[in-house]
């Protein structure tokens, strides 16, 4: 994996940014011990954190993708320290975020949690009934800290085994300072009847920044998981380096849905990897709207014969945003299949970059894969780049790729205006049509929020 991660080939990279090596002052073993102690972790987790810290300190920044040279890791320690009073007031939350909450119709208490100024969101009442139902099925759905304490052996077996801390600098940082996130364990043959929402697991310090999600779907089981929400999330520390590890065992099926709307001061340097065993199915559905800069390449490693994966994504890069994302599909077993449908919109000077990898190994005979990238540019201030790397190492694979970059044509607008729509409504309708295939994969309440969000983004970019 390390080799695949480093797209440092002579032509694979166009962005030529000078990076400097930085480590976070004060981020040493002492603070790591403090975090671990406050979470009452077993010794192995402390050791893991310390090992990750060592790796982090030897790593350089990525040599491709977004420029992170302005990312200030200096205040990370203050943020991590568990006994520090992080109380801030509602007035500290930027005006635009508060406005967005208003327009999206987010309830008062929830707004405060999302903005990091409220007490823990009182989700307990809603969650209790779900919890009982899950328990009866033998499903474990816990916040990550509790899982480490309650199921140490189970967690230890899988924790950061799929994504090693040596993968890249921010994976190592994550391993050292992770906090919060969810642990999902679905026993053999169990089909979880409702989507699990990571939303209920928010609340522990730093959980918004370095959350760790680990999903184990045993043989023949099925589960859907929803991460994030469409409301903007604001944090003083402007780095998000979360991690998602998913193990799809033989014949199991996992669907992972993300709606990412970090506030527009955030560096979103996230890592997501799924390993799919024989005849397993992994489905990624992803909507990215927020953050200032994002580097995220969800990977599916199809290691069992007949395994399959799909990746549907929509990225909206507005003013001041540089979103560098894409799927990695690694076929290492025979008769595996993958489908990528990545759509992006850039507007108001935003920059959407699709960077993907499709790798068909020598052993992956009889595999099928397709990659489709579409970009919609709403103006000529914005940028849309596409870089899908395709590597095919055997003669019994079937691989197709297509990409298209375009704009909303005047004719489409005039046609809709002739039908009585205003220009803004016409544009919004066309953009929604572009999003449609992704939106329909979302639970209804998210689809509704997504539509509101699009309207909001278009309003601010077109004016």
């Amino acid at each position: 994996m390390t080799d695949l991660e480093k797209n440092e080939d002579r032509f694979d990279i166009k962005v030529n940014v000078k990076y400097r090596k930085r480590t976070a002052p004060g981020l040493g073993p002492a603070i790591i011990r403090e975090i671990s102690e406050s979470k009452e972790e077993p010794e192995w987790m402390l050791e893991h954190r310390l090992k990750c810290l060592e790796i982090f300190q030897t790593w350089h920044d990525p040599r491709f993708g977004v420029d992170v040279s302005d990312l200030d890791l200096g205040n990370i320690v203050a943020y991590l320290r568990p006994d520090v009073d992080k109380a801030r007031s509602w007035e500290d939350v930027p005006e635009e975020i508060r406005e967005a909450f208003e327009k999206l119709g987010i309830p008062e208490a929830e707004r405060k949690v999302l903005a990091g100024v409220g007490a823990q969101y009182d989700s307990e009442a809603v969650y209790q009934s779900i919890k009982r139902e899950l328990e009866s099925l033998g499903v474990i759905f816990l916040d990550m800290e509790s899982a480490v304490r309650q199921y140490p052996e189970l967690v230890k077996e899988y924790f950061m085994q799929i994504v090693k801390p040596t993968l890249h600098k921010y994976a190592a940082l994550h391993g050292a300072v992770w906090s919060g996130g969810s642990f999902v364990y679905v026993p053999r043959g169990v089909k979880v009847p409702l989507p699990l929402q990571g939303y209920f697991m928010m609340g522990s310090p730093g959980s918004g920044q370095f959350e760790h999600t680990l999903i184990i779907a045993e043989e023949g089981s099925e589960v859907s998981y929803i991460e994030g929400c469409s409301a903007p999330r604001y944090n003083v520390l402007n780095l998000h380096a979360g991690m998602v590890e998913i193990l799809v065992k033989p014949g199991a099926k996992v669907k992972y849905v993300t709606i990412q709307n970090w506030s527009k001061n955030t560096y979103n340097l996230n890592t997501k990897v799924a390993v799919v065993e024989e005849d397993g199915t992994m489905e990624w559905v992803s909507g990215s709207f927020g953050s200032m800069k994002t580097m995220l390449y969800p990977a599916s490693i199809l290691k069992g014969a007949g395994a399959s994966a799909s990746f549907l994504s929509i990225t909206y890069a507005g003013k001041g945003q540089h979103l560098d994302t894409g799927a990695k599909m690694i076929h290492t077993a025979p008769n595996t299949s993958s489908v990528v449908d990545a759509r992006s919109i850039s507007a108001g000077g935003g920059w959407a970059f699709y960077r993907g990898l499709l790798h068909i190994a020598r052993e992956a005979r009889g595999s099928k894969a397709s990659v489709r990238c579409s970009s919609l540019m709403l103006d000529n201030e914005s940028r849309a780049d596409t870089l899908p790397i395709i590597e095919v190492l055997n003669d019994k694979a079937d691989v197709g790729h297509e990409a298209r970059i375009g704009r909303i044509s005047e004719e489409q607008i005039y046609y809709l205006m002739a039908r009585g729509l205003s220009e803004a409504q016409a544009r919004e309708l066309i953009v929604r049509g572009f999003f449609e295939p992704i939106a329909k994969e979302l639970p209804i309440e998210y689809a509704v929020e997504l539509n509101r969000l699009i309207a909001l983004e278009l309003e601010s970019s077109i004016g």
Partner: protein
Amino acid sequence: MEHDFNVETFEKTSRYSSPQWKAYKASLLDEYTTTGFPAWRRSKLARLELPPLEEEPQLEIEHAGAVSITKLEESSEALELAKKTEFEGSDKKFVLQSVVFNSSGIFAVSEGNDGFVAIKVGKKTQKSVLLHNVFLVRKGSRLKVVNLLESASYVSVLNRYIVEEGGELSVLNIRMGNTFSFTNEIYRVASSAKVNSYSIDKPGDVHAPFALSLLEGRGASTRFNNTFTASGSSIVDSMYVMRHRAAETHGKIEGSGVLFDSARSVFRGNIEIAKGSINTETGESVNVVLLSPQARADSIPALFVEENEVTASHAASVGALNEEGLYYLMTRGLDENSAIRLVVRGIFEPTLQDIGSEFGSRWQEVAESVLTGKSP
């Protein structure tokens, strides 16, 4: 690499150069010696060995008016043009190498509507070929160029084409059986000028072609058509760049190839559209067929777009031969090898037809023998 060209190599290869040409080359010698060889990830250059250079390789040139580039003198238009090198290419090291250590090359100018240049070089007798050629297509004129590089142990070539307003240029590159070859081509295309460039590639060991079209004037157009076949453990590691810098420019990158044994191809196509290049139409398509379980095809198409009033697309496919087609042919009495050969011939056919109509049947036959020379 232990051995690199040095000041002695420079003196040797400059023996027959004009003082002005030698001085120009000398001004870049330091930069060459302080620049390292690249460490490419996809083509391993560890095996690369530089051969001893010859004082003046024998070029076989079909063109009455071509001037030897090494004899250029002060204040000539040719020298001034030759000096304006962009230094872009697969790697600066190889571009510098062609410029500093060439002991041969031509400067050719289009003549009216039927200019034709053919440069044939290589063959078994020639160990190394380092060339720097410059072609000028004058306003409204037409030029056809054929570059045949064959069976050399080492090739480092820089070809620069300047196509003035309304000019038309057709290029046919045939590069086969060269152990190591690094070819860099830069096309500077003015308004309403048109470039049609074909490359037929069959590597000996490592072949890394690079071509860049700078579409600088309104309505400029370029088509890159690359057809390749590779066998054994050879690799063809190519890059085509279409850089749209003006309105109403047209670009097309086409690649198709067939791989045998444990051969490998890397096909990169970059389409770059600068802001302001409105109504540009551009696209890329590549199709590679693998005929062995050990073959490998990488495809890296890239679109970099800063202007929204454009049409840009790319498409790629990699796979096996259509089995139904093969079985059909076999039920018609062909054995498997003949059936495969026929299908492969079908993949190359459209390009061969185009070459025939632009360069005549003589060159179509040469291209065809390169592509279909190896029986599966």
